[in-house]
């Protein structure tokens, strides 16, 4: 299939100029634009992280002033979440792959797709303006009344930046939903969709239903600060806890916006490395939807010690326990997929194993926090920090890197150095655990988060953690080098270097501008490594 004579140029081919890229409507080029931008933001966020870790080497606050430190972790959180992890997999891998995977020539609304990138950039620029005009020191959670009445930093600007960026995510989600509904190739039924598409669909649902609420919430904060309106001001009788409800109504689903795409990537990778149908396809597919739905019902678990009604806490706690079940189902299905597979030891499997290990730890520690009595002790401590880094960095980021490597040959048409990729995965895994495992212990011992200086007895573990961050840094820097190197010197990639299934592997690497030489027709289920019998899944 891949050797058909090229009738179209690859999407990387002409037209070249900057204008042709910046005004492109091709989902693949837009994906590359996103790839470049979020990589920059990851670097920015990582520099902030380095600042945090270096300060925490010593108990005294001696490297930065406390105001600077507060800005560091705030900006680290804001940049990493809103400008890196939320757009990462959806806007890069999703943009690139979703249309190809379902056999479409593009997303339903190519112009809106480009617009959403511009909105993202506009939001990013405004937020960066805030960084240089006073910074931001509210924590990424913007809690009122600190953010509205007390902080002296550029909260309004940053809030507007986040507000704008929100629309980028809304438009991406909207585009994906319509595309999945309306653009599938003939024969591409819902149950033949790759699981990555299911995950993206579930993610998009959360984006369109949740993001508007954070948008209006930060707008209210901006209006309260800037126009002196009052929404949460306690001196007018306003309730700061209301803000927390509105904030977490989005921001809890947002954590699934950040992990579901990663889960989708892992589903693809697990199937490809084992050359086997994903175990329990429909369970994995529906667990994505279940997470998307139940994920909206649990936000109150961030408010257990906020003076929220304890009865409301009960409801949120039990629902939180329920939302863990679909994740458990997925984890077990991935594991079972490898059973009797033909498992490769290419770099891909390293990312998969890394993800499974770290996500499981991260997820299970979420249960400590979901058990209300336990959360009283652990809330706002380093235990929480460790919990979410395990999921977001150990899980999602690992999956993102895994996916980026896996589809790199498809996106760029070049092969990278697999040995270095393995080294990078191993380094990330080790460095990661070294950085964040001690934080569980710290949290249990009672070390509060967002502390610029801390009591002496916590030092040993903090030094370990900073050392781990050093290892982690090497693990992240490595791909930057060998992937860039591959662009110029890498071997040309065949259409299907991994021997994987899926429409994206039937087109040349890199794919032609309109993805397919001829309109694709699908007549087999996903991951059909054992062709011959049409199966019912279950």
């Amino acid at each position, binding site marked *: 299939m891949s050797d058909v004579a090229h009738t179209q140029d690859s999407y990387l081919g002409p037209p070249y100029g900057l204008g042709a890229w910046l005004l492109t409507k091709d989902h693949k080029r837009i994906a590359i634009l996103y790839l470049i931008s979020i990589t920059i933001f990851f670097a920015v966020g990582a520099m902030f992280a380095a600042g945090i870790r270096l300060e925490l080497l010593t108990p005294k606050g001696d490297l930065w002033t*406390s105001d600077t430190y*507060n800005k560091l972790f705030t900006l680290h959180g804001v940049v990493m979440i809103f400008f890196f992890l939320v757009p990462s997999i959806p806007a890069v891998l999703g943009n690139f792959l979703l249309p190809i995977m379902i056999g479409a020539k593009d997303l339903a609304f190519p112009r809106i797709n480009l617009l959403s990138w511009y909105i993202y950039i506009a939001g990013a620029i405004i937020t960066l303006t805030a960084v240089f005009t006073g910074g931001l*020191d*509210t924590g990424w959670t913007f*809690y009122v*009344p*600190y953010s509205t009445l*007390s902080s002296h930093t550029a909260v309004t600007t940053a809030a507007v930046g986040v507000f704008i960026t929100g629309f980028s995510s809304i438009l991406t989600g909207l585009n994906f939903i319509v595309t999945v509904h309306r653009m599938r190739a003939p024969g591409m039924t819902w149950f033949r969709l790759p699981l990555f598409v299911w995950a993206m669909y579930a993610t998009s649902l959360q984006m369109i239903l949740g993001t508007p609420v954070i948008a209006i919430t930060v707008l209210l904060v901006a209006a309260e600060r800037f126009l002196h309106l009052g929404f949460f001001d*306690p*001196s007018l*009788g306003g309730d*700061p806890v209301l803000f927390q409800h509105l904030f977490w109504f989005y921001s809890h689903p947002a954590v699934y916006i950040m992990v579901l795409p990663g889960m989708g990537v892992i589903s693809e990778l697990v199937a490809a490395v*084992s*050359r086997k*149908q994903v*175990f*329990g396809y*429909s369970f994995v597919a529906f667990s994505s939807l279940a997470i998307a739905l139940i994920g909206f019902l649990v936000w109150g678990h961030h408010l*257990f*010690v*906020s*003076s929220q009604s*304890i009865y409301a*806490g009960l409801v949120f*706690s*039990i629902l939180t*326990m*329920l939302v*863990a*079940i679909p994740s458990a*189902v997925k984890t077990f299905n991935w*594991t079972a997929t490898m059973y*009797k*597979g*033909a*498992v490769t*030891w290419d770099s891909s499997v390293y990312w998969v194993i890394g993800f*499974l290990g770290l996500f499981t*730890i991260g997820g*299970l520690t979420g249960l*400590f926090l979901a*058990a*209300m*009595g*336990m*959360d*009283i*002790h652990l*809330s*706002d401590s380093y235990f929480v920090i460790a919990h979410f880094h395990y999921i977001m960095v150990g899980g999602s980021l690992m999956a993102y890197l895994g996916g980026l490597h896996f589809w790199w040959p498809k996106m760029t048409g070049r092969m990278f150095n697999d040995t270095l990729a393995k080294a990078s995965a191993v380094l990330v895994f080790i460095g990661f655990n070294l950085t964040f495992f001690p934080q569980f212990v710290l949290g249990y011992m*009672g070390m*509060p*988060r*967002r502390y610029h*200086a801390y009591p002496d007895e916590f030092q040993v573990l903090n030094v370990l953690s900073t050392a781990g961050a050093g290892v982690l840094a090497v693990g992240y820097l490595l791909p930057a080098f060998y992937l860039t190197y591959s662009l110029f010197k890498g071997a040309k990639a065949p259409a299907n270097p991994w021997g994987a299934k899926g429409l994206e592997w039937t087109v040349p690497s890199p794919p032609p501008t309109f993805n397919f030489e001829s309109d694709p027709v699908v007549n087999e289920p996903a991951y059909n*490594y*054992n062709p011959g019998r049409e*199966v019912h*899944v*279950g």
Partner: protein
Amino acid sequence: MDLLFLFIAAVSAFFVVLVAALVLIFAVKFRRRHPDAVGADIHGSLALELTWTFIPFVLAMIMFFWGADLFFRLARPPVDSMEVFAVGKQWMWKVQHPEGVREINELHVPIGRNVRVTLGSEDVIHDFSIPAFRVKMDAVPGKLTTLWFKAEVPGTYHLFCMEYCGTNHSAMIGTVTAMPPEEYEAWLAGGGSAGGPAVPPAQAGEQLFTGSTYGCSTCHKSDHTGVAPSLVGVYGSQVQLADGRTVIADDNYVRESIMVPTAKVVKGYQPIMPPFQGLVSEEQVIQIIAYLKTLKADAAPAH
């Protein structure tokens, strides 16, 4: 609580090891032996899916009930607790004991006694946390919150502000000193560590209530003759509101009645009480409440 921690930790460890072990074993045992090899034709198993839905579900429910039970015990202070008041402000804790002794960023408590801390905040959200006792609660401006604990072993423990509150959040720390009851009494008698006149909060509240600054008692007379309801025995009772609802007069109800009286109007009275928002400080509210609590229905005070 630490038992619950161990339980969840054990469950977690079990699943982490299980998943990790299975993944590694499968990855090694079923490694690709031939470049074109494909995996076995297995699609799923309903029985397995149900098993691994059900077992985590049961475990999660155990965690939920256990955690909820603990939480409810921590959320409801026992009746016999000794009452301490703490008000957070950027960036310190102002603590007052029932006998009136004040301290800043320190809290002395007797061991073996339930201690209830009522929290207020003058500016932004803070969080009063004593990790060693496994307790923590936000101090939210605009309302009062509580937590309670019982120290068992004498010693000094960390007191942290655990909700981010600005520049010196990480310096908003202090110590909790747990001491045997006799030592505690002696410490109290010595005027605590800060010294200064020790007016018990309830007494201070009485002065505020009857004094002329706010003039509460000109309207609120204990014999129901005033234009306002008598506040004797109100605290903790069921109050009938003008719009037909009934509410329990807890800390926040009383606080709201003082700050924004029209929010909940008592049945049979006109909403003429002036709002004291911005006049009465959080600390004074706490004192007035402490005073109102002493006004038991049976023992009407003299004035």
